């Protein structure tokens, strides 16, 4: 099972109900293949950085789900077929999340070690002493 993030742009003239209905359809495609939808986030209408299919705006929707690679294939096919969607991007994020978690853990551990290793007085740096003048800020 992998975690994916899907960001897609719906046509600006699509109504709220249409988008909701479409998101529901996508959710069923994920759940029928044994995956789960973790997050649905609607960003609302945004200006596009460039024209896409002659549209200057679009409604962004972000979905996060965990599923196997096969179900992503089906998911993307649906997005491609639908004329409601003008653009989409799928990103696999489980490895990124893992990396970030590790970074955070390491950082916390280091901070913890620093705190427990006796609160020593701040030592003036050698360079500063040699110069004999306070370092210029910034």
């Amino acid at each position, binding site marked *: 099972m992998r975690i994916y993030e899907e960001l897609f*742009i719906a046509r600006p003239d699509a109504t709220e109900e249409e988008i909701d209905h479409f998101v529901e359809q996508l959710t069923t495609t994920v759940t029928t293949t044994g995956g789960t939808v973790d997050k649905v986030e609607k960003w609302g209408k945004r200006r*596009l*950085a*460039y024209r896409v299919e002659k549209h200057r705006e679009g409604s962004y929707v972000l979905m996060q789900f965990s599923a196997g690679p096969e179900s992503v294939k089906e998911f993307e096919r649906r997005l491609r077929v639908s004329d409601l969607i003008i653009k*989409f*991007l799928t990103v696999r994020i489980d490895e990124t999340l893992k990396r*970030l978690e590790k970074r*955070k853990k390491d950082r916390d551990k280091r901070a913890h070690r620093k705190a427990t290793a006796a609160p020593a007085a701040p030592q003036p740096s050698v360079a500063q002493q040699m110069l004999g003048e306070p370092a*210029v800020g910034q």
Partner: protein
Amino acid sequence: MAESRGRPGSASQRPTGGDKAVATNKKQYFRRKKVCRFCMEKIDDINYKDVRLLNAFIAEKGKIVPRRISGVCAPHQRRLSDAIKKARNIALLPFATTV
């Protein structure tokens, strides 16, 4: 950052503005030491959805700012350029804009 080289004589009078002095034969000019923003602020995640952060690293025309100008370290520049390219793909950032 196009730092004009000081003409002989004028360089010593200009304010330093930085902590690192680089001396090249006779002409002396000062350069501020650049540091990676992501290392300094301990930003682990360079996300393609964070448009405001990425905007700081694209030039007026939409190009990615080179590392020699922004001062970003190599590992972070790699992740940054990946994020910018993803953001371009989904129309959050422009590929190129005419000024």
